[in-house]
């Protein structure tokens, strides 16, 4: 994930809405994707995405630049997603195993398998995997988002990889039978 142009960021911090639009444009897709992976429900992910940007705008002045902007905003997304899940739990328990609708999907079967594997691993393992492998954060940045130590990120990332490799190997083996 790329960080915004510092000049754009400075303007957005000063309250310039057009600059903030640039930031929304830059992160909207990644924020939605991360939110969807955390809440597994499309409409909740949309709510989380909106809430995350509104919170980001509100707290932009408190962002001091001591961590990359991308990890700062992903931390907000994660907090919003956790709040949404807590709200859901307190309401009627519901579980929708929904996937984002495919736009231009070259190999829907492979993608479905990957999504299934990704959601078969625990959230503790899934989050660092998504942040590092899909969104390109470093161990230190992922640790910052998740509020855990770098060493813990390393070991969770490794466990996630092992579990996913095993799951995909099992799928292949079943297919071969």
């Amino acid at each position, binding site marked *: 994930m*790329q960080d915004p142009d510092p000049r754009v960021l400075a303007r957005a911090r000063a309250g310039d*809405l057009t600059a903030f639009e640039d930031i929304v444009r830059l992160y*909207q897709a*990644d924020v939605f*994707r991360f939110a969807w992976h955390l809440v597994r429900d499309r409409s909740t992910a949309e709510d989380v995405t909106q809430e995350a940007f509104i919170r980001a*705008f509100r707290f932009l002045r408190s962002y001091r630049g001591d961590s990359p902007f991308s990890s700062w905003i992903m931390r907000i997304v994660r907090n919003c997603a956790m709040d949404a899940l807590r709200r859901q739990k307190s309401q009627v328990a519901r579980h929708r195993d929904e996937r984002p609708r495919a736009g231009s999907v070259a190999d829907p079967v492979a993608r479905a398998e990957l999504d299934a594997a990704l959601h078969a691993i625990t959230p503790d393992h899934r989050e660092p995997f998504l942040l590092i492998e899909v969104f390109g954060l470093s161990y230190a940045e992922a640790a910052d988002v998740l509020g855990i130590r770098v060493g813990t990120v390393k070991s969770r990332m490794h466990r996630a990889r092992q579990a996913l490799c095993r799951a995909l190997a099992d799928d292949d083996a079943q297919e071969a039978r």
Partner: protein
Amino acid sequence: MNCERAQAAISERMDGERLPGRVAAAVDAHAVGCTSCRAFAERAAELRSAVRIRPAERIPDLMEPIMAQVARSTPPGRRFGGRPDRERWLRPIAAALLVGVVAGSVIVGGPWQSGGTRTTATAVDVGRGVRAAARHVEAYHAVFAITERGLSIDVPTRSLEAQLWFSAPGRYRLDVRDTTSYPSEAWTPTDLTYVQDGDATLRSGPSGCPSSLPPTRCPPTRTVTQERSPYAGAATSVADLVVPLDVLANPRGLAVERTGTVLGRPAVLVRMSFARAAPLFPFLQLGGTWRPFYEGDRVELWVDAADWSPLRWTVYPSQDATRAAWEMRFGRPSESPAIPILDVIATQSDHLRPTADRFALAGAAPQVPLDDLAARLGFHPVTPAATNELVLTGAAAPPTGRGSLQSVLTYSSGLTYLRVGERHRWTSPQPFGPVSADAEQVQVGEGVAYYEPAAGDLGRRLSIHTSDTNIYLETNLPRDQLLAVAASLPLTGTELPVAWRVQHGGDARTELLTLAQAKAGTSFGFDVPGTLPGGYVLASVQRAVVRGVQSVTLDLRQRDSDLGAGPIRIHLEAADALPPAASAHQITVPLGAVEARWIPAQARLEWVADGIYRSVDGPGIDLGTLAAVASSIEASA
């Protein structure tokens, strides 16, 4: 070392962590003998490709509700920049897309909605977009994940990471790091570095390995080349990774497939042949070991519709029947056209200016103020009055090695450049600069100049000769703009001296002529073929007399670029029979009433009729097209 620790280390290395030397060596040693750890490394690399390369999901466009809420939550005194409205926040995208390249996808719901399958873009629109973007990009940094398949049976898949930096004007750096887990230490990783600072370049990488040798037999030596070229030359070699100007500026040979979203960005998919896409693969030329590619292989390029940077490009084996012959010739297994053999994907990018030390290179020619340059040279270099809004960014007097002095002025804007070289004393019997003797003679103002299309590492070039001086221009501006710049120079080019155009050697005499001159003095009739592939024009005519036998050669070149297909060369000579076969592999092709011989290895179609031998050579051009050219020659004979 046990498997658990080895796999943890493999995982860390994949994520860019630097392992201590001892640990790295122990992991590699363990992996050599451990099928489980090797399988883990392969699976993890496949997993990475799968998650990074999977197609874009449908992303909702939430800009409007977000900005509406943000505006509501902001006290009026604090906000500025006006009330956001949908039209305004689409404007930057629409402006960047230029001429409505993905206007279709905006209209049907915004580029963020992905899956836009309506294509309103044409190859011409894409060309305009990249040209405009190339002028404005000031800095760029990107990380690319490269996956190569089919290097060898032992190493079916390789993973590499490339990192690119650009800073205008004219500074580039490309680092390639090979992250493949090789079966043994006998393999040399393809770690490469390329740095360019103005006219100085550095290339460093493992010495290339001939395809006839297994990669494990190649000694792990590194080649480091540092050189200076007063001409742009290598300047274009990695520039297409910033904005694919060389590949996309000329619409010929491109097919715009559709628009969509890649890596969360609005993007345009363009399809072309591997030969046409060559500038997107500069790393293949920098050394190390790479699998071979067939020039007709299919390349699918997703280019960012906002800043025109390449987001993802993939090579698939061609379905062309001639690929099978190529596979046999190189002893390669048959490959499925559905499975990509090379994937390059931009995993990160930004437009922040890299620090100057990224490009630090000893030996770059010192830049001097224009006035000092005149004092040093003893003459005022000529400057064009019109530079197409490019500004002077460099002036140097690089040594020529022959004692005479020359100047090189560089004008640029973003990636777009124009170089003007000048030398008063120039005695070589050919145009000044890297322009060949058979370049196309073109009209410039009241005078003439010699033009060559872009080819390989060189841009479009023009050489101008006058009785006082010699000028060389090189640029990635389009041909008509180059000619306009040349027309604004305060001089009038003359034809090359007769002594340069006529060459003698033993019993042979060759001369460069105009078509009319050649027709007038040749014993047999000929003309420019009535059928030519689009974009080709007659560049030069050469007549030779060898031991009393007359022959004529016509060179036909593309107007803009040699990418994808080189010159077409037509040769005619008095003869009663075909010469001995130049290759064992040949095919007979009917051309009206006569039969021609097709030699694929030379891309040559040749036949004899009415006492004249005729041949048409067209590297990179398919047999059907060449046969149509040949038929039109035969029909008019």
